[in-house]
Structures are given as C-alpha cells and as structure tokens.
C-alpha cells in the first residue's frame, strides 16, 4: 500500500473530509477522458520560474539548495515536458500565505513558489533555500518536518500527484501525522530526498535528489 488512506485520524483535518465510501472502481473504458492529460507549452513557463532565489531584488536568507530529479511513469520511463510545481515555507518556517500566522519572520526576498517543465529525460531542477520546520495546531507541540510541496502532472489525469518532499534524517518524522499517514515505512522513505554530492555545487549550494514515480492513479489501493 503506497498511498495514505483518506481517513487518518491522527491528522485531524481528515475526520470531516475523508470520504466514507471507497471510490467506485471504473470499468475499463478506453474513451474515458481521465486517461489523457493536458499538455503544457514551453512558452507558458519561463526558465527563471525554477529559481526561487531570484524572484526579488535581493537573495533570500537561508541555506541555498538545488533540488533536482526525474519524473517517471510506472514503467520507469521519463515523463517529458510535464509541469512540476513546488511551493514551500521560507528558511524560518513561514509561508508567504496570508493565513499563516506562525510568528516567524517573512523574508521580503522569498515567495517560495516555482515551476518548470521536465526535459526529454524527465528531469527537473529547482534552486531554492532549505525550508524551516514550523508548528501547526493539529495537536500539542505539533511541528511539521521541513518539506517542499510538489505538484506533478503525468500522461493521464488519473496520475495527477501532489506530494511533499522531505529532507534526510529529520528528527520530526516519527511525530508527524502527515508523513506517518503513509502506512508503509518503505513508501514513506520514497518521500525523503537524498543528499546528492554530484548535484552539489562547490562554494555555492548543497544538492538534493528527489525522483517521482507516478502510479496508475493516486486513488489506487485505498
């Protein structure tokens, strides 16, 4: 079982939002439009949108990092020219979102949103800063491990994936109901990026590698 169940009571927001019935399994239908996906044009996404450190007049505070990897389908084939979107908190653990009330500083030089299209090998690459951990009100003394949100399109609308990339060795993993909502430990590990010395740029930024493999559908094995 790869994906979390809808109902995961330790993550309280699931209690009133998790569907109570399992999804209806569709009969095979080659004409179902859900088996196709939008195609994004290169003119729609500018190269600089993949550099989250270059969106303002100055550089953001924090540890500069390069996050790169590949988007693959279930057979290990690259998903080409597909849209990858990321968003994250700043290095102090604060989102540039009006409803984030965590009393950590906003960074005028960091918004924390980027996007790019994959290349012919399914590769993407973002330059950003390492996000901070931050508290949330799910339970007493609840803290989210540092993470970068990813939104990925596959070759079918049913492959649409939104997930979160974590950093290796985070001590908050055992206490985070969102990370722990994934029942299988090996599946959880697939959300943890690997430190990548080859992607690390001397005198400039640490590199992390995060590959994404799209399943048939996130609704499977629920």
């Amino acid at each position, binding site marked *: 079982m790869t994906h*979390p169940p*809808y109902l995961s009571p330790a993550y309280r927001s699931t*209690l009133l939002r*998790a*569907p109570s019935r399992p*999804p209806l399994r569709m009969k095979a239908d080659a004409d179902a439009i859900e088996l196709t996906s939008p195609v994004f044009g290169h003119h729609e996404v500018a190269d600089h949108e993949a550099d989250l450190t270059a969106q303002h007049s100055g550089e953001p505070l924090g540890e500069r990092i390069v996050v790169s990897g590949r988007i693959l389908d279930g057979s290990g084939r690259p998903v080409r020219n597909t849209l990858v979107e990321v968003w994250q908190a700043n290095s102090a653990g604060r989102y540039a979102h009006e*409803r984030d009330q965590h009393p950590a500083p906003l960074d005028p030089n960091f918004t924390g949103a980027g996007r790019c299209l994959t290349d012919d090998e399914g590769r993407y690459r973002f330059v950003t800063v390492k996000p901070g951990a931050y508290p949330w009100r799910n339970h007493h003394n609840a803290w989210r491990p540092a993470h970068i949100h990813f939104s990925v399109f596959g070759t079918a609308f049913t492959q649409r994936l939104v997930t979160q990339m974590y950093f290796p060795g985070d001590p908050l993993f055992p206490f985070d109901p969102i990370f722990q909502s994934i029942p299988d430990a090996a599946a959880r590990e697939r959300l943890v990026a690997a430190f990548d010395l080859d992607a690390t740029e001397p005198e400039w930024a640490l590199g992390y590698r995060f590959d994404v*493999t799209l399943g048939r559908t*996130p609704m499977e094995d*629920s």
Partner: protein
Amino acid sequence: MTTPSQTVGPFFGYALPYAQGGELVPEDHPGAITVTGRVLDGEGEPVPDALLELWLGETGTRGALDRRGPGVSGFGRCPTAPDGSYRFRTARPATPYLALLVFARGLLKPVATRIYLEDAPDPLLDSLEPALRATLIARAETADAYVFDVRLQGEEETAFLEF
C-alpha cells in the same frame, strides 16, 4: 515504486492558482457555460481551502496556464473561496461530462469525480443507484449555468471514482 501522495495542505493559495485559471474560455466565447458550486465537509460546512481542477479531455487551443488569447483550453484550476465556492467558465465538452479533481487540506490524496451536464443514459450513471447517480449530475440553473456541489463526506456524499 510509486511515490506516495500527501495533502496539498492549507497554504497553496499563493502558489498553485494562476490568473484566470478557472476560465477555460474567454468571457465572450460563443456557447460558454459556467459551472459553479461549493465544496462541503461531513458536517455540511464549506471547505475554504480546496483546489479544484477541471479537465475536458483535450488540451485545446488556449494555453492551460497562459490565458492570453482566444480559443478553448481543456484544463482549469480554481481554489475555493472562504464560503467554499468555486467557479469555472468553460466550453461544452465533447463528452457528456467534465472530469474533476479536488485537493484540500485534510485530503491526503485527491478525490476524482465527474460533472455530468445532463441526466441521460451513460455506462457509469446507469451502474449507480438513483441517490448516488444524482450526486454526479449538475443542476442547470439556466441554459448555460450549471451548479455542482462536491460533498466530501456524509449522507449525500458525492460519488468518487478510481480508474
């Protein structure tokens, strides 16, 4: 090995929505329809931090992200407002239905459903008992304005699909 899903969380609003994301066609597009509605939780309360994605099955002639220019895009994205409401303007699809994905805080993976624009014979609809069937059919307020609510949980829970 498949990468697991995680919730979109509450703070996507500054990142994922884009200008005219819910407008698959320009305002003056001939034959345009609107699809509006609300996303509701298990107590019937509005879900103010959901993100809806609409898909017509063809990329079309208008950008999926860059809405400048005429034509029809097959893809739309719309966050819910504080009252749980959303709004799409689209062309009529070639199929009897539009495909819909809903993401939200508290949804560890999206829910998928279909918005049928009329209650007519259909392999999926015909396989459902009447109450469940009714959750997939939009209400026509006028000839070109449809209303479709998504109920994530509870007695009138929307029929969600897996493929």
